[in-house]
C-alpha cells in the first residue's frame, strides 16, 4: 500500500485528489494539511511514503518544506503538484529536491502514474533537466547582476553559488552540509537566502518561477520611449 500525504491550501483540490487516490487500488491518503506548519507536525507522525505538495502555501514556502522533508525523512519522497507551467514546475522541483512534479491537469492519469513511478524509487527529475535549471538560474543571477545598478543584493556569494550547484545536483540540506563542511542549519539559511535573492519566497509574486524570471524592477527606462 502506497501511503500518501497531501499538502495544498485549497480544500477542493485536496478533496479531488483524495477521491482520485481512494478510487485507486494500492494507494491511500494518510493525512492532509493546508499549511507548512501543519504538514511538518503531521508528516513526522504519519511517516508517509510520498508527500504530494503545492509550492505555494499560505504560511510559507513549499520549496523549503520540501527540502526539510527530504533532509529529515529521507525515506519519504516528494512530488510537487502545481498550477504553474512546466518551466516553473521544473525549477521548483529541482530547487526543492523533489522526485518530480505534476501539473494540475485533470486528464491523463499523470498524478497516479507519477506516484507509482516515484514509489518504485524512480526520480522523475532527470539530470538533464536539473542541469538546464542550473544553467538557467545561473544565467538569471548573472543577468540581474549586470542589469541592476545596486547589484549588491542580487549578487550570489561564492557559498551561495556552491549551494545552488549542489541543490541542482539533487542534494538535501544535510548532504550539502556534509559536502561543504557546514552545519545543516547554516545550509538552510543559505537556501533561504538564495530563494529570497531569486525572489522565490515572495507570496505577492505571481509564481515561484515567475518571480524569478520576472523580477520586480522599475518600469522600462525613458530612453526606450524616445
Amino acid at each position, binding site marked *: 500500500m502506497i501511503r500518501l500525504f497531501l499538502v495544498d491550501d485549497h480544500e477542493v483540490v485536496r478533496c479531488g485528489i483524495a477521491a482520485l487516490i481512494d478510487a485507486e487500488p494500492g494507494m491511500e491518503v494518510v493525512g492532509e494539511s493546508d499549511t507548512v506548519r501543519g504538514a511538518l507536525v503531521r508528516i513526522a507522525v504519519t511517516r508517509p511514503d510520498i508527500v504530494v505538495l503545492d509550492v505555494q502555501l499560505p504560511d510559507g514556502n513549499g520549496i523549503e518544506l520540501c527540502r526539510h522533508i527530504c533532509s529529515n525523512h529521507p525515506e519519504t519522497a516528494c512530488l510537487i503538484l502545481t498550477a504553474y507551467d512546466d518551466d516553473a514546475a521544473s525549477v521548483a522541483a529541482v530547487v526543492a529536491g523533489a522526485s518530480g512534479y505534476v501539473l494540475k*491537469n485533470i486528464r491523463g492519469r499523470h498524478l497516479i502514474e507519477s506516484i507509482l513511478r516515484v514509489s518504485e524509487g524512480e526520480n522523475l527529475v532527470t539530470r538533464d533537466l536539473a542541469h538546464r535549471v542550473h544553467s538557467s538560474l545561473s544565467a538569471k543571477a548573472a543577468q540581474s547582476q549586470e542589469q541592476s545598478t545596486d547589484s549588491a543584493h542580487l549578487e550570489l556569494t561564492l557559498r551561495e553559488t556552491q549551494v545552488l550547484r549542489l541543490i541542482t545536483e539533487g542534494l538535501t540540506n544535510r548532504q550539502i552540509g556534509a559536502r561543504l563542511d557546514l552545519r545543516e542549519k547554516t545550509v538552510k539559511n543559505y537556501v533561504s537566502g538564495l530563494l529570497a535573492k531569486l525572489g522565490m519566497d515572495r507570496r505577492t509574486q*505571481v509564481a515561484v518561477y515567475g518571480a524569478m524570471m520576472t523580477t520586480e524592477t522599475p518600469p522600462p527606462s525613458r530612453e526606450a520611449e524616445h
Partner: protein
Amino acid sequence: MTPSSDFRDLYASDAHTPSRAEMARSNHFLTADHGLLNLLQASQLVTGELDVDQVLFNLAEAARTLVDAHFGALGVVDDKGEMERFIHVGMPPELVEQMGHPPRGLGVLGAVLSGGAPIRLRNLADDPRSVGPPLGHPAIQAFLGVPITIRGSVYGALYVTNPSKKAFTAHDEALIKALAATAATAIDNARLYESSRRSQELSAALGDVAGKLLNVGSTEVFGVLAESLVSLTGAQLVSVVVSEAVGSELYVDTARGVRAARIEGSSVPWMDCVLSRAMDGEPGITTEGGEEPVPFADDIPSASMVAVPLVVDGDRVAALCATRSADESPFTQDDLALLSEFAAQAGLAVALAWARADKQRLEIVEDRARIAQDLHDHVIQRLFGTGLGLEALASPHPQLTDSIETHVTQIDAAIADIRTAIFTLQTRTGAEATRHRLLRILAELSGTLPTPAQVTFTGPIDLIIVGPLADDMAAVLRETLSNVVRHADARTVEVAITANSHTVELKVDDDGIGLSPDSSRRSGIENLSARARGHGGDFTVSARSSGGTRALWRVPVDAPELP
C-alpha cells in the same frame, strides 16, 4: 483751434496796434512756440504707443518733422555697442533696400553713440570722423545726431540730415534733445510693457503645458512642449532634439510647425552649431549672417534659430529649438531668455508628468500581477478540484464516462488557457523568455485572422528551447503563421508547441483551403525544412483529414553538456 491762433486772437483783442519790433518778437515767439507745440505732439505720439517697433518708427518720423529735415533715422545698439537696428524715414524704400546692410555705427554715427553727446554739423563730409555715406545713400550735408540714453546707458541715437547746407540750429538741437529724453522714457516703458507681456504669456503657456502634461501619455510630452513653443516664440518651426551622447548624432524626436512632418524623425550630424551647443548645456542663438551651419536650412532657408537644453530631474534629456524663417525678424536675446525660462519651468512639469506615468505603469504592473495571482490561486484551483471530482464520478457511473470525459477535456483546456494568460500578464524584464517571444509573434500575426490563433504549450519550453534553437523556433513560427495568414484563407488556427528532453515540436493546424502548388509557398517550405535539417530534424506539411493543413516542424534536442 490751435494755440497759435489763440495767441493771435490775444494780440488782436489788445486795443493797440503792435509795433514792428513787437511783431518781430512775437514772430520769433510764435516760431519757437510752433516748435514746442510740435514737440508736445511728437511726445504724445511717442508715449501713447506701447509697441516698441511702432515707438521707434514714430520717433524717427517725429524727429524729422520736428526740425523739418529731409531724412531721419533711428539707430539702436545692442549690449556690445554694435548697431542692432537702423530705421530710415523720409527715404524711398527701394533706396533703403539698395543700401542693404544697416550702417555699422562707424564714423560720425558711431561718434554720437560713443561720445554720448549731440553732434551738429554744417557739412558732414568736412568732419574728420566722417567715413562718407553708405553706398547708394543720397548726398547729405547738414547733420544732427542726438544719443538716446536709458537709465544711464546708451540705447541708440536719433539722426536727422539734409541734402542742402541748410544747417540745423541750436534750437533744433534742443528740440531733438528734448524728444530724445521723452523717447527714452517711451522706449523704456514699451520695453517694460513688452517684458511683462512676455512673462504673462510665458506663465500662461506654462500653465497650459502643465495642465496638458497631466492628461497625456508620457510619449506625447515633447509634442505638448513643441506646440506651446510655436505660439509662444512666434516661430515657424519648433523641434525637440535628442542625442544619445554629446558628440553623437542628433535626432529630431518631435517637430511642430512648418515642414514638421518632414523634419520629425530626421537626424542631423553633430556639428558646431547652436543645436549641438544646447545639447551640450549652453543656450544659444544664431548670429545674423554668421558662417555657422544652421540645422534644417534646407527646409527653412537662411533662418534664425534659438536652442536651449531641456533638463529633467538633473538630466539633460533634449534640446528645445525654435526656428524662424528668413522673412521674419530674427530672434533676439529676449527670445532666448524667454525660451530658457520656459525650458527651466517645463523641465519641472515634464519631471512630474514622467513620475506620474511611471507610477501609472507600476500600478498597471501590480494590477496585472494581482489578476494573474487571482487566476492562479482561485480560478485554476477550483477548476482543477471540480474536474477531479467530476472524474471521480465516472467509475460509479460508467454510462456517464464519455460525457464526463468531454467535460473534463474542456476544463483542462480552460486551465491551459488560463496558464498562458497568467504567463502573458506577468511583467518581463531582461532577456525575453522563449515562451514570451513566441506569444508575441502569435499576437502580432494573428491580428489578421478571423479569430486569434489558439496556442498550447507543453513541457518546459523556456528551459529546453534556448539559444539558436529558440531563434529558429521563432523564425519558423513566424514563417508558418504568415504563410497561413497569406495563403490558407483559414478561419481557425491552432498552434501547439511541445518540448521535452528529447524533442521539440511546433505544430500549426489550420482549417483553410489546403496546400496549393503555389511556388512562393513552396520556397517558404524549403526554407523551413532547411532550418529543421540544421538541427537534424524535419519539416512536413500535410493535409488534415478534417480539411485544412497541418505544418509540423520537429527537431531532436541535444542533452546539455553536463559539468
